[in-house]
């Protein structure tokens, strides 16, 4: 089994300043955006489940930032930062969290179900592991059309135990479908530590079962994350070879806004310690060290982002709810001329 090496540590090489600042921008945007979402949730402006990515930003941003426009991204319900990294506007994402008609899913999806056809962002899925076969199908379509784009598929480590993972990876490897399977190993599925539900700790090793290349990525360092994914992307573009990438990271917040940050399943101390490795801090230090970022740069950037996030929140606030008749829109693409599709007392 081809097993690729981890990305080199001195990973600034090969990036120009602008690119690095773009990454820092995305990292900070993701963080500020979710801080704002957390506030809005506390105020009841966002409902349902809301899963934050705080602490894991390097994974999604490192993986998505090298993509081409014609590439695809599929992920789970912890999807805010992936959407932003893919270029979906903070306004459209925040409006979706608020359930507004201007949201990127028209207010019908909410936090767990973000989509943007314009950005080839395929969401936003709530059934653990369910998006893995979907992404494999996107890979199938790419190959079917003899294109050279790739599909990134994100899922949490707990999804690895699902049958869907096993079935999809076999087909992806068998048919050489250009999919990069990225395990966001934040070490917990809700309140359950990976080692309590897996007989094999090393996730990347599961790729052997499919004769698929694998890699372990440092999910707390956006540059190393990106370098590792880049190799997988290149491999997929070249001849469709899929890769299983285990991105080691950590969730700083609770599983969702309604779950505790720590408790029976992990200690406050552990969380505090992990926070020392904050991926944003890591990047800032790398840039400062390399004299590519000054205190001023950072403050200006941060100001700009704060404004952008406030603007997004304001936009969401001011946006209208969907019209009542949206209830029956887009259930079906085709309202057949014959017969009845809807049966309920509202239609009576």
């Amino acid at each position: 089994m081809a097993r690729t090496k981890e990305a080199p540590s001195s990973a600034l090489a090969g990036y120009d300043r602008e690119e690095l600042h773009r990454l820092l921008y995305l990292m900070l945007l993701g963080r500020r955006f979710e801080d704002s979402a957390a506030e809005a949730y506390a105020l009841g402006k966002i409902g349902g489940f809301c899963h934050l990515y705080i602490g894991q930003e390097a994974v999604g941003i490192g993986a998505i930032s090298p993509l081409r426009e014609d590439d695809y991204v599929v992920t789970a319900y912890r999807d805010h930062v992936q959407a932003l990294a893919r270029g979906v506007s903070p306004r459209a994402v925040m409006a979706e969290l608020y359930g507004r008609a201007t949201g990127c899913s028209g207010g019908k999806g909410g936090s767990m179900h973000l989509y943007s056809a314009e950005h080839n962002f395929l969401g936003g899925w709530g059934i653990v592991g369910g998006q893995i076969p979907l992404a494999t199908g996107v890979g199938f379509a790419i190959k079917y059309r003899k294109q050279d784009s790739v599909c990134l598929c994100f899922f949490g480590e707990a999804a690895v135990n699902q049958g869907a993972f096993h079935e999809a990876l076999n087909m992806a490897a068998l048919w050489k479908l250009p999919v990069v399977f990225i395990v966001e190993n934040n070490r917990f599925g809700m309140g359950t530590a990976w080692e309590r539900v897996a007989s094999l700790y090393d996730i990347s090793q599961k790729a052997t079962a499919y004769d698929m290349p694998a890699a372990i990525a440092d999910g707390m360092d956006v540059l190393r994350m990106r370098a590792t994914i880049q190799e997988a992307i290149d491999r997929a573009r070249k001849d469709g070879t899929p890769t299983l990438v285990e991105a080691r990271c950590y969730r700083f917040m609770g599983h969702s806004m309604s779950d505790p940050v720590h408790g029976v399943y992990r200690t406050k101390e552990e969380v505090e310690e992990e926070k020392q490795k904050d991926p944003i801090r890591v990047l800032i230090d790398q840039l400062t060290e390399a004299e590519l970022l000054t205190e001023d740069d950072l403050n200006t950037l941060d100001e700009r982002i704060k404004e952008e996030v406030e603007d997004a929140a304001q936009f969401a606030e001011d946006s209208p709810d969907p019209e009542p008749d949206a209830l029956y829109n887009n259930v079906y693409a085709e309202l057949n001329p014959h017969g009845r599709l809807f049966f309920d007392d509202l239609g009576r």
Partner: protein
Amino acid sequence: MAVITYREALNQALAEEMERDPDVFLMGEEVGLYNGAYKVSKGLLERFGDDRVVDTPITELGFAGLGVGAAMVGLRPIIEFMTFNFSMLALDQVFNSAAKMLYMTDGQFGCPIVFRGPTGAALQLSAQHSQAMEATYVHYPGIKVCTPATPADAKGLLKAAIRDDDPVVFMEGELLYAMKGEVPDSEDHVVPLGLAEVKREGGDVSILTHGKMVHVSLQAAEQLSKDGIEAEVVDLRSLRPLDVETILASVAKTNRAVYVEEGWSVCGIGAYVSATIMEEAFDHLDAPVLRVSQADVPMPYNKQLEKLAKPSPARVVEACNSVLYR
């Protein structure tokens, strides 16, 4: 009688039955260390240990099937689905293994198992997390289904389900967990399967319902009574076995019926009960049995749309008025 929550009632039932029978064990995601996603199993790991309160990987098909296998050889598993939405992954093991076990083996291997968890919508959880799956389960012979609406029924029916020798799909409601109500203190508070309960008496129209919708129906009944209409609210409690007797008795009295369900109407519980009533009480009916259900669409996230989609007291009142030709 103590006043406790629906959640505590379920917790008591679990604890008492695990005390009573060492073959009973609880298995599912987060049921142990995390005390349950909705805290229904709070304290059970500590009390019974991790042999009997088992946290699983996220593998609905796998642990449902594991439970069925354990039941085949005499254990009495309680399999928790964090919500029934996720049980769609496990339906093969429920329908093709559990439901057919006793029949295919002609009685040699039974399947005394309970599949439990919340069904239906909570608040703004969107399409994948807001499905009422009663109709999907009750369609398959070999399965029993119950849907408690109150703390007393939650405890009594769960104890009955655990003691039952057949696979029982036990459907709770996330929005019911915090609801308080009186529950008999006795350890023998068992509500037998197949027994409906008239939750409110009335002679003008029968509102037939189950689960969460019992409360929506009771609210509707209150509103109707302001207009001098006395509705009888019949909580079926079990969907299979179904208390046809009580249903027909109420219809014979009121000559009018409305079915209120949280789920979709196509091949829904309302269709099942409505068609049964027509077959068996046609001459008692002064009006067609009408159904109130979720809007026939996937559940939207937006708060207003979700509100529109869910059955409301107003919609129940409207249906009652039309069967009363008012």
